[in-house]
Structures are given as C-alpha cells and as structure tokens.
C-alpha cells in the first residue's frame, strides 16, 4: 500500500486529559473536516487536500498552530510525513519530512520508537539499533523468528503504511428535552416525568453504545428562571441512576419552592432538559472506583446521592488527604463523585500513610480544626503578650490564655515555636507563622498559631 501524506498534531500539555483535548479537536475540525484521534494528545489527518487548499504544507502547519494557540491557548507541535507512524514520530520534533524522504527520516531513529519494548530490547541485544537496520532485515526471516507483530513493525519501520487515516465522526447531539403544557408543581408528577425522560435518554445512549459519567439537568420555570445542576459520578451512570438523579433533583427544586427555602425556583417547571456529558463507550463491567462493587456500597452511594439531591452536590463531601504543613492544608473535601487525587500528587496506596513532609505536625492530630482562627491572647507572667523573635525565641514564657475574649485560663504546659514559612517568594500568598501546642489548667489542649504578633486558635485536641 503506498503511503499518503499524513499530518499529526501532538499536544503534550493536554495529553492526559481527553476532555480538554476535545477543544483542540473542535478547533481543528473547523479547518479540516476529517480528523482521527490516535490517543488523547495526538490526532492525525490526511494532509494532501488541506495543504493544497492552504498553499503548501508549511503554510498548513502554521495555520493550524496559530489557530490552536488562539482558540485553546496550548502549544502544539505538528509533523508531516508519509504514513501515520512516521508522521507521529515527526510530530514529536515538529519536522515536516518532504515526500519520498520518509525512509531516510525513519532510518536514523532508534528501535525503541516502535513502541514495543520487549522487541526493542531484543533487537538491541542482537545489534539492530536503528529502524533502518531493522527494515533491512529479510522480511520472511523476521516473521519466522520474531512473529507476526514484529513483521508488522518492520513494515512500519520501512515506511509502509498499515492503514489509512480513519476520520472520527463528529459528536452527536445526545440531549433530550421535554416541554410541559401543564407545568410541574407536584412531586409525584415530577417523579413520573423523571422516569419517562430518563428512559428516553437511556434509549438514545444505548443506541449509540454509550454511557455517561456526568449528567446535566436543566429546567426552566414559568417565570423564566433557569436552573441547572451537573451531577458527576465516578463511573458510568446506570439507567436507574439517571432516573434517580432526575427525580431527586426535581424533588430538591420543587421542595425548595414549596417551603420557600434557600433554593429558590421561582415557580413550577415548564421545561426539562437532560444532557449527558463525558460519554464513554458502554462496557459491560466497570471496575468500581470506590472499591469493589458490592451491595453495601451501592446502598450507601444511593443514600448519599439522595442527600445530594436534597441539598445539592456540594453538600456531601469525602476527604482527600495530601501533603502540607497545616492541618487544614492537608485535607481537601471534594464533593461525592468528583475526582479524588490530592492536589499535591497521588498518595501511595500502601506504605507509611502520608509520606514524609518536612514541617508537618506530628501525630496525634487534633480532632477539631477551625476554618478560621479563633482570636486569642497569650500572656506571660508579667501580663505582656507573648511574641516570637526572629531567631525563634519566645519573648516570655506563656502563662495565661484568653480565647475569644473570655476569662484567662492558666497554662500548665506549652511547646513551640514551630515555624512555618511558606511561599516566601510569592508575595501575597506567602504565609509565615509559628505553631504552639498548649495545655490549659482545665485539661483542654489547643494548637495555636502566632502570625504577625496575633495569636489564634487553629485546632482543638478534643
């Protein structure tokens, strides 16, 4: 098969994120109709037509680079060569390989670019180091010695294209909507409507062989107010799950209006629209991201999702631990169903719980942490407010503490100062404070912060 000219766009910044990469694809599809996604981060298109249209391959490359930079704000590298494989390799370095010179381009590349590590290590040990050497081996011998996959790799190394570019079909509109002649006011009518609409959406998804992990429920009331809520799930939402979520969401909205609570739909609902987002191919079994699927887990997730319907998705949270010095820095509360990797990087599943983090407060941790520091005053025996010098020495031994303006209590023990000096290079975001542990005469123990001469209670060891 003769190879055709293929252009590959490679975006290293967005490579891990399929959702963000979609914006790049949409931008490219404005200019060139038929784009194939090789994997998130790399897409391919036939280059002959567009390059003739734009007046040359370099012009095409410049047009695409500037378009993507303008629309999506990311930097991409583009390569053109004969065949998808060679073009992919050319994209890594941003080369435009002239027609007919692909063989020479490939010949100099090492065998590890084939993407077959076992084969590559074997070939290196046999003395075959570049694709050129590999392509020069007799094809029949390669087939008998290394197998069919290696023979395919040899064809790639020789610059032959295994398959043409297969363009993806642009995404189909998958939402369903329904208008109501009699606007919904009652909760039981809402339940019925939710079930039927969810069934319609499920049919659409099944017809395309898809499932969604995010569901957007929108409603319009008779007074023109628009309501919108996005429900996320860690795995694909089952058809029953779609119906449940719609019903709970309508319950939440309608109940808010009936009781006149803080959630304020201004009136009955006249239009309901469901849009699935983050669609994934329907697979028969999805490994549970909350642990092994089981009846208890399903029951618990159902109950938690129901509370989300009553109070909103941000109301139910789970804790994600990460690195940090302050107690509040280490915990991030994410809404149920959201991605749970910690901001400071993934925490290892086994081994010591949180990894080393210099300056971290040692165990045992206080069980109650305050979001805002409670104002307090710590005085020494003479009645002066205790401070900390630049050399981390206290100006007087802390003797009494008065929390939130109440009466002073004597301290029977204290320890510190343990300094924290974070992001000193960042201007406003710099934080500099000293930590103290104190024990009061009535048996209570607190964690205090001293920052800029002001004392505050950060946590209570209760």
């Amino acid at each position, binding site marked *: 098969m003769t190879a055709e000219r293929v252009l590959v766009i490679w975006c290293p910044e967005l490579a891990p994120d399929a959702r963000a990469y979609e914006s790049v694809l949409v931008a490219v599809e404005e200019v060139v109709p038929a784009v194939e996604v090789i994997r998130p981060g790399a897409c391919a298109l036939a280059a002959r037509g567009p390059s003739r249209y734009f007046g040359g391959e370099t012009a095409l490359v410049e047009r695409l680079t500037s378009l993507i930079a303008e629309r999506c704000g990311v930097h991409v590298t583009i390569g053109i060569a004969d065949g998808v494989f060679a073009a992919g390799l050319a994209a890594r370095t941003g080369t435009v390989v002239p027609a007919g010179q692909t063989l020479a381009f490939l010949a100099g590349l090492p065998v590890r670019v084939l993407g077959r590590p076992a084969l590559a290590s074997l070939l290196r040990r046999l003395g075959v180091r570049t694709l050129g050497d590999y392509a020069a081996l007799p094809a029949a011998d390669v087939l008998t010695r290394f197998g069919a996959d290696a023979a395919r790799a040899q064809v790639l190394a020789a610059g032959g294209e295994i398959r043409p570019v297969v363009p993806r079909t642009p995404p189909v509109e998958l939402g369903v909507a329904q208008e109501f002649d009699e606007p919904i006011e009652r909760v039981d009518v809402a339940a019925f409507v939710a079930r039927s609409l969810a069934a319609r959406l499920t049919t659409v998804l099944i017809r395309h062989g898809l499932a969604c992990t995010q569901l957007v429920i929108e409603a319009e009331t008779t007074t023109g107010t628009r309501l919108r809520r996005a429900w996320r799930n860690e795995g694909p939402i089952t058809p029953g799950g779609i119906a449940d979520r719609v019903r709970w969401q309508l319950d939440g909205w309608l109940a808010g209006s009936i009781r006149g609570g803080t959630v304020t739909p201004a009136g009955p609902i006249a239009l309901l629209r469901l849009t699935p987002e983050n669609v994934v191919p329907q697979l028969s079994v999805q490994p549970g991201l909350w642990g092994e699927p089981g009846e208890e887990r399903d029951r618990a997730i159902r109950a938690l999702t129901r509370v989300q319907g009553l109070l909103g998705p941000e109301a139910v949270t789970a*804790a994600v631990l990460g690195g940090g010095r302050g107690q509040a820095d280490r915990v991030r509360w994410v809404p149920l169903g959201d991605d749970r990797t910690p901001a400071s990087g993934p925490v290892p599943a086994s081994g010591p719980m949180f990894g080393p983090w210099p300056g971290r407060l040692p165990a045992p941790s206080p069980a109650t942490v305050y979001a805002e520091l409670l104002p307090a005053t710590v005085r020494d025996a003479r009645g002066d407010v205790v401070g900390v010098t630049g050399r981390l020495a206290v100006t007087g031994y802390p003797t009494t503490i008065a929390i939130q303006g109440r009466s002073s209590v004597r301290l029977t023990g204290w320890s510190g100062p343990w300094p924290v000096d974070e992001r000193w290079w960042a201007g406003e975001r710099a934080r500099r404070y000293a930590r103290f542990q104190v024990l009061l005469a009535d048996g209570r123990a607190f964690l205090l912060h001293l920052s800029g001469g002001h004392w505050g209670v950060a946590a209570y060891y209760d």
Partner: protein
Amino acid sequence: MMIPSLAECQEDPEALCRTSARTPRRVDRLVAGFRTVRRADMAVPGGLLPVRPELRPILPWGGLRRGSTIVAVPAATSVMLGLISAASAAGSWCGVVGIPTLNAIAAAEQGVALDRLACVPDPGRDWAAAVAALLDGLDIVVAAPPGPIADAVADRLAARARQRGSVFVPYGTWRGADLTIETVRSTWYGLGVGRGRLRWREMVIRAWGRGIASIPKEIKVWFPG
C-alpha cells in the same frame, strides 16, 4: 476436664463453648445461670459492629448493636471517632452530619477508612431529612443536631435506625438514647514547659443508658489507641 465457673463465663462467653460436655447436668445448670445473667448477649438482633477492644467494656453488647442509638456527648470528637473506627476499618460505611470542624487526618489516624466516610458539614434546615436519608443506606450515621430537637423527630429517627439496622450516633444532647457516652476527664501527657509535645492522654469515659446499661460504667482509655 475443667468446666468454667459462672464468673468465668460472665467474663468470657466463649469459654463454655470450648469445654466438652461430659457432665451434661452441670453444663445445663451453668447454661441456665448464664442465660439469666447475660440475656442481652445471647440474642443480638441484627448483629454487632466491631469496636476497639478498649471501649468494649462500656458497651453492654460488646460492640455497636445495629439499630441502636448511642449518644456521644461533646466535646469528645476523638471518642466518637474511636467508637466508629474499628467498624469503619472492617468495611462499614459511615456518615458524619453537621460537624464542619471534623479533621479527617485525626479520623484516619484512629483507623477510620476515608474511602467509606462521607461528610455533610452543613445540612441547613433539612437536618432531619438528611439524617433520615443517610440512615437508610449507611451503617453508622453520626449527626450533630443544630439545636434542640423535638421529641417526635428524635423518636422517628431512632425508629428509622432500628428498622434499617443502622447505628445512629447523635453528637450532642439527645433524649431517649439506648446508651450515652460522656468524657469525664482527660489528662494529656508529653507536653512540658517549653518542650515536648502532646503525645497521649488518659481519658475517663462514662457510659449509661437504659435496660441492660442502666448502671453507669466508667473506664479509663488511652488515646491514641
């Protein structure tokens, strides 16, 4: 062959099962005596959730009985976490409602599995509805009431817990609980004057309730475990 005495059976219910019944009549008498004294132990409807060994003496059932209401009086968040930690580590799902100051690190240090812990820090006015919904699906629900709770609401929640077999742990003042757990005092060790740090504390915990637990019990426990 040693048949355990009645006192030994009260201490360790398994002791009787370990002996071989070579003298049936003595065993019958022992079992009869055993039955009258520890009736609550013999039949625990719904089952028990495990609890840290140090806290077992204050629980009349030797664990957290499903369907019961156990009140934890603040301020003793560590005691509440200690109560649920063993069950959570063993696979139970726990929910915490109305405690925005809860520190997840302290929970994890005590052994609570954060994968199976969900928090509703601010339920707003729908406190009772949220708690009821959670009692349906979770094994343990800790809920801090936002204010005085009407008796009818309290009874309804307790009945729901009993019906679904979940353990309801109100964290605050509550009427009509099966068991109430309170911290009498705690003494911290490890912190000196200008040196050291807080390391351990000895807590005296008292529990009283109704029925079997009507006699208050006090124990001393070291936290962390």
